[in-house]
């Protein structure tokens, strides 16, 4: 990590904060009444005392605490297993201006770890309940709940963003968003435009925490290979050669449900509806009996249908704590932040491994140069589509491809709108030459995995 660049960023942020603070009317009312003697003692020791391991930039100051309490704005993405822990850790560490985003509602199965929620809250929006809890129990803390991330969020000038997401797609989107906010003056990155992203993830007894300085350190896409694509069972196994109880369940889910429409036309299988799961369970048992396969249980059925990942309170507590520590370090400069990836596993003892993930030179998200893609002019568009979805470094979900052909912007293929999908589907079996594409021309690709259109340069091979 380039410490010099990083300290420039801190300085710019600090100056801007001081400016804003001077312009603000300081309300000494409620904010200060909720403080009690010694409340922040544990925090102040790190803000007001010098030490041999602090960041080179660090200056002990009694103002840092006020900055954290009054001014520092944190965005927490996700109010689930990690989010609840993060909100609590941040609030208790002196961060009193937090926005939290989550579009989900509370489910009973959340209650074993998402401790801001009670049985009576089931069905209510996670962000709302989480914010209420923190605001009512931690005096002075102001958590604002959101259900979606609006672009305006970024004009709120968040100092740091912390993610506790359960989806790689969402992480990549956030990553792309922050990269799009970077400002370059004559090709040089303006450190003031960097919003640090702390990202946490957990699965059972494993987890990781990482620090990303967009434009400076490895981003989510630089290390996409660390998230291997989800394995799905081959269709022929499910359809005609089941061997495992899981195959039987997928059979009921993917083949029987659409055929038999047990709850009516157009009714989609809802993993949260016990009646739906019961139906799948029964049909899976029948399928299994046909092939003498044992092991189909209700719990397994639900696990397969909902793609459930096991989870406990402890792993979420550990990873969120590590992330919150990094937020504190970056906001205060009290210590040098994690550089830049920590892995945790407590299946056998407790194991951590800390390393510096490296930036990928040709990263699809942060390398800023159009990526070359090599195809023969007689390749079909379908091959290009397959490359975009199957390549380990891109892993797109349903890319939409457009290009400028004969001076006009042409949609070559788009999946997400049915009418356009139908219209452009024949293009998939046409060759790139037939579609009028030329060597070295740019293709623009949009996808859920990236908030900004990605540019590719088509290089024809002979």
């Amino acid at each position, binding site marked *: 990590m380039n410490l010099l660049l990083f300290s420039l960023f801190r300085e710019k942020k600090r100056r801007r904060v001081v400016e804003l603070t001077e312009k603000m009317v300081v309300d000494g009312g409620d904010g200060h009444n909720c403080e009690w003697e010694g409340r922040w003692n544990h925090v102040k020791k790190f803000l007001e005392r010098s030490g041999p391991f602090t960041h080179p930039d660090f200056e002990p100051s009694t103002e840092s605490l006020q900055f954290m309490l009054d001014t520092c704005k944190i965005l927490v993405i996700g109010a689930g297993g990690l989010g609840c822990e993060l909100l609590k850790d941040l609030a208790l560490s002196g961060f009193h201006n937090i926005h939290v985003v989550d579009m989900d509602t509370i489910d009973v199965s959340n209650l074993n770890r998402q401790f801001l929620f009670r049985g009576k809250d089931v069905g209510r929006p996670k962000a709302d309940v989480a914010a209420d809890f923190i605001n009512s129990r931690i005096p002075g803390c102001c958590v604002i709940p959101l259900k979606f991330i609006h672009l305006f969020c970024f004009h709120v000038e968040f100092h740091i963003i912390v993610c506790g997401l359960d989806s790689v797609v969402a992480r990549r989107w956030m990553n792309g968003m922050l990269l799009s906010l970077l400002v370059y003056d004559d090709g040089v990155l303006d450190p003031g435009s960097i919003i640090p992203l702390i990202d946490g993830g957990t699965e059972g007894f494993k987890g990781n925490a990482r620090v990303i300085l967009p434009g400076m350190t490895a981003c989510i896409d630089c290390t996409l290979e660390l998230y291997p694509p989800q394995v799905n069972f081959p269709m022929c196994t499910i359809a005609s050669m089941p061997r495992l109880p899981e195959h039987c369940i997928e059979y009921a889910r993917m083949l029987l449900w659409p055929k038999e429409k047990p709850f009516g036309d157009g009714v989609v299988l809802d993993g949260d509806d016990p009646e739906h799961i019961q139906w799948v369970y029964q049909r899976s048992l029948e399928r299994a009996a046909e092939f003498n396969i044992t092991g189909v249980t209700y719990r397994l059925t639900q696990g397969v249908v909902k793609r459930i990942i096991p989870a406990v309170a402890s792993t979420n507590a550990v990873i969120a704590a590590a992330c919150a520590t990094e937020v504190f370090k970056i906001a205060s400069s009290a210590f040098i932040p994690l550089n830049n990836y920590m892995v945790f596993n407590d*299946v056998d003892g407790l194991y951590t491994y800390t390393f510096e993930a490296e930036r990928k030179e040709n990263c699809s998200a942060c390398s800023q140069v159009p990526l070359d893609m090599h195809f023969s002019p007689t390749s079909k568009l379908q091959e290009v589509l397959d490359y975009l979805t199957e390549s380990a470094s891109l892993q797109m979900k349903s890319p939409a491809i457009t290009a400028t052909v004969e001076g006009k912007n042409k949609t070559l293929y788009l999946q997400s709108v049915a009418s356009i999908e139908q219209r452009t589907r024949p293009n998939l079996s046409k060759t790139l030459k037939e579609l009028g594409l030329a060597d070295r021309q740019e293709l623009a690709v949009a996808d859920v995995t990236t908030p900004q259109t990605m540019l590719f340069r088509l290089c024809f091979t002979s």
Partner: protein
Amino acid sequence: MAATKASKEQKYDRQLRLWGDHGQETLENAHVCLINATATGTEILKNLVLPGTQIFFLSNNSIGKIRAQAATELLQELNSDVSGNFVEESPDKLLDNDPEFFHRFTIVIGVQLPESTCLRLGSVLWSAAVPFLVCKTYGLIGYMRLVVQEHTVIESHPDNALEDLRLDQPFAEFKNHIQSYDLDSMDKKDHSHTPWIIVVAKYLEKWLSEHNGQPPKNYNEKEAFRQCIREGILKNENGVPEDEENFEEAIKNVNTALNPTKVPSAVEDLFNSVQCNDITSQTLSFWVMLRAVKEFVLNEGNGSLPVRGTIPDMIADSQKFINLQNVYRQKAMQDAATVSKHVECLLQSFGKPPESISEKDIKLFCKNASFLRVVRCRSLAEEYSVDSVNKDEITSCMDNPDSEMVFYLMLRAVDRFYQQHSRYPGVYNYQVEDDINKLKLCVNNLLQEYSLNVNIKDDYIHEFCRYGAAEPHTVAAFLGGSAAQEAIKIISHQFVPFSNTFIYNAMSQTSATLQL
């Protein structure tokens, strides 16, 4: 009643998938004693109460009492299935007046306890064979010490377990089963859907007959073996090899398939231990079962553990796969039944009824025979005694003066400071400067007493004064999650606890496990 059980299943669903209903039961029936409602203490408590563990709270002082009461109420709110109790009595008082108070617990967790209390409590719990988990958050350092005489784990759930296929020593039923296959006379569909295990077994049989009964041993031989299999892939009319995924799987798996079957050294060590060989009526069922398995290995098993009975998924048609799976399953059941007979004999030999250990438990034990683990930790007395301090571990770690071991030594030094000055260093700003020298004296005193020839950099002494015994929340929360999970491992006897000292450094986000 049914409604509560169903709603508990729903609530605990995500964790039941990790430790099962039987694991959950151990948590709900456990009696965990937690001492001290500090930030770390309440975090540990939260992470135990949420999954349903029954908790007993002890407070250290009057401020702690208020906190303990409030914490207990809050935590009962967190999980209505858990009845938290709290006792307003300091552990020192209890140690004076009623040390047997602690004997009833499944595990005792001591948080932010001074050294003297730790050692006293450690001694009582050691004699009563009650596991003791010591936890401390000090500045940006987290510290845990597990003290347990002997902790057995049947279900360790290893991350990367090798399969138990026995291809190098095929049992009779397996040999019979592969006799029923004639690859050369199969039609294409059957040929392409024969499980790779059978493919490898068939080609291995051929190889053995052509190589004097010697299996492929080195890289060249294994390559040649792989080539044999490759040549077995069917070809179409033009001599082009067909797409036979099962054969590709066979080739890919040759290396691991040829691994010799043997008893893992960790299990051999257990076979050779005193507990396994001196069985009495007091012996825990773990050791009785282990001894029975040892007898099996020495007799019916011909040097191998009972067959595990599971095979990985592979390209095959349903019938061939299920039939093959059943061959392994039946063998496993047979082996478990044989082990059962040995268990019965042992139990009889000291007058216990055979039902003392259930078939279910024996089956589970046999299935996990390769993964059995026993964790043993030294007592605190041993760690602290000048005669038995682990000098080697300390000095070798400190070859790197920035290793996590330095934090262990600093925590010991800080305890010494507390003993001398009745306070921790640097709690108030005005103390920091002067305390550095005082703490340095404690450090030197410590190193001298234990004859430790190590160098502790002044930076660390300065830093520990800077910490001022702070308990920052994020470090408390990290430790809270870690400690709770270790406690759950002790209670459930699933997954393997650390042994015996864990240090977390939040400054660098690194950690280490030390043996002290």
